[in-house]
């Protein structure tokens, strides 16, 4: 447990001092969402209809953007060798790193999302569910993404490859995230969607750190 906190603290400290990663992710998120009205036209009816989908698609692209750095620097400077040798399960270290990654990239997305929802004329009924869905969904994205980030360590064209590996696996989160918000906006029951997203979070919490650890061991071998 202490070790878990030590990893989180170290990665947060690294992120804060290196700065800009969180800002870049949020900037990407905002900018991409702002592009949509230019693409589909400024009529509030259309924007309102696509708002949930646009927010989720851009959010998952944004969270993927910073993923390839999750293990890359540790891999390059030799820290990863030492981390895999630490006297604790590698999945605990992975969990710590993913938690720090989520705090620095996922959390800012959640904070930015409601503002963008206003820009897209989303019905205010959906705001609460938007935040709730993102709060449950983005950690899942980080966990799944970690597996991909570990797999592409040392690969040629790692960044592009990462999106090919990870994006198809993001589809379930996208579907239920959008569906929950749409249901809330239209005044339907949305609990089922949130519960399913919670289930997906629990499953990935159980499996992804383990798979990531296996991938990391291969990468340092």
């Amino acid at each position: 447990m202490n070790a878990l906190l030590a990893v989180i603290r170290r990665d947060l400290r690294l992120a804060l001092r290196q700065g800009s990663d969180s800002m870049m992710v949020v900037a990407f998120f905002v900018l991409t969402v702002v592009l949509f009205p230019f693409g589909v036209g400024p009529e509030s009816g259309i924007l309102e209809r696509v708002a949930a989908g646009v927010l989720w698609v851009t959010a998952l692209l944004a969270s993927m953007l910073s993923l390839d750095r999750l293990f890359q620097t540790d891999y390059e400077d030799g820290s990863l060798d030492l981390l895999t040798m630490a006297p604790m399960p590698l999945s605990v270290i992975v969990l710590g790193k993913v938690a720090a990654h989520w705090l620095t990239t996922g959390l800012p997305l959640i904070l930015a999302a409601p503002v963008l929802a206003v820009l897209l004329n989303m019905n205010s009924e959906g705001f609460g569910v938007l935040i709730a869905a993102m709060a449950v969904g983005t950690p899942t994205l980080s966990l799944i993404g970690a597996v991909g980030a570990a797999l592409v360590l040392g690969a040629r064209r790692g960044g592009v490859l990462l999106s090919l590996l990870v994006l198809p696996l993001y589809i379930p989160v996208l579907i239920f995230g959008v569906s929950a918000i749409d249901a809330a906006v239209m005044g339907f029951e949305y609990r089922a969607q949130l519960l399913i997203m919670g289930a997906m979070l629990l499953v990935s919490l159980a499996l992804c750190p383990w798979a990531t650890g296996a991938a990391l061991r291969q990468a340092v071998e």
Partner: protein
Amino acid sequence: MHRFANPNRFLKLANAILPWSNGVLVVSLLAGLALALVWSPGDYQQGDTVRIMYVHVPAAWMGMFAYVAMAVASAVALIWKHPLADLAGRATAPVGAAFTFVCLVTGALWGKPMWGTWWVWDARLTSMLILLFLYFGYMALHNAFDDPQRGAKAAAVLALVGVVNVPIIKFSVDWWNTLHQPASVVRMDGPAVDPSMLWPLLVMGLAFKAFYVSVVLLRIKAEIADAKIRALRMSEIHG
């Protein structure tokens, strides 16, 4: 070429199986095509276009089957470190991807006369499309490393992650589809299939399976030859 070290036994087995699978392939393909194209009736609604089904459905079966086979091979490779399992996974991926692609193309060709459009976001077609991307990811990861061993191991982990996800993706897409799709769309699983159509379908399924076995065995043989060449080169360099 680590530990494909002992391919001789496999090669013996493969050479014994290949004539049989080739034979089954030729016979069942000819019989299946004859049944499907000549002796089976047209559909009372769809006319002759229904015959696309005899390619489309077996391709879909094999697309899914090959992914599971790939995942099983990956699990064997990771857990028991069996050298041939790596090769089997690697050999299966492009074949499975090709089946999936055939399924999508025939789906589009079928969709045009049936639905009046090349593509419909039907739950099954969408799932197959995602499956195709999973295959692409596996193949890309396999080839992304300078060390083939590393590529094989990474791809094996990906295949396992993928196979856990496939049912979740399938379930999500079904859910999404029922929300968005008007109910009037003709579903492929409509009424129970008449025996006169079922038989050609099963024979074609057998032909596709035999094709898969033959091609995968050939590809594994090619991989072993390739590994031998690399080992020879290696010993030239390092003595």
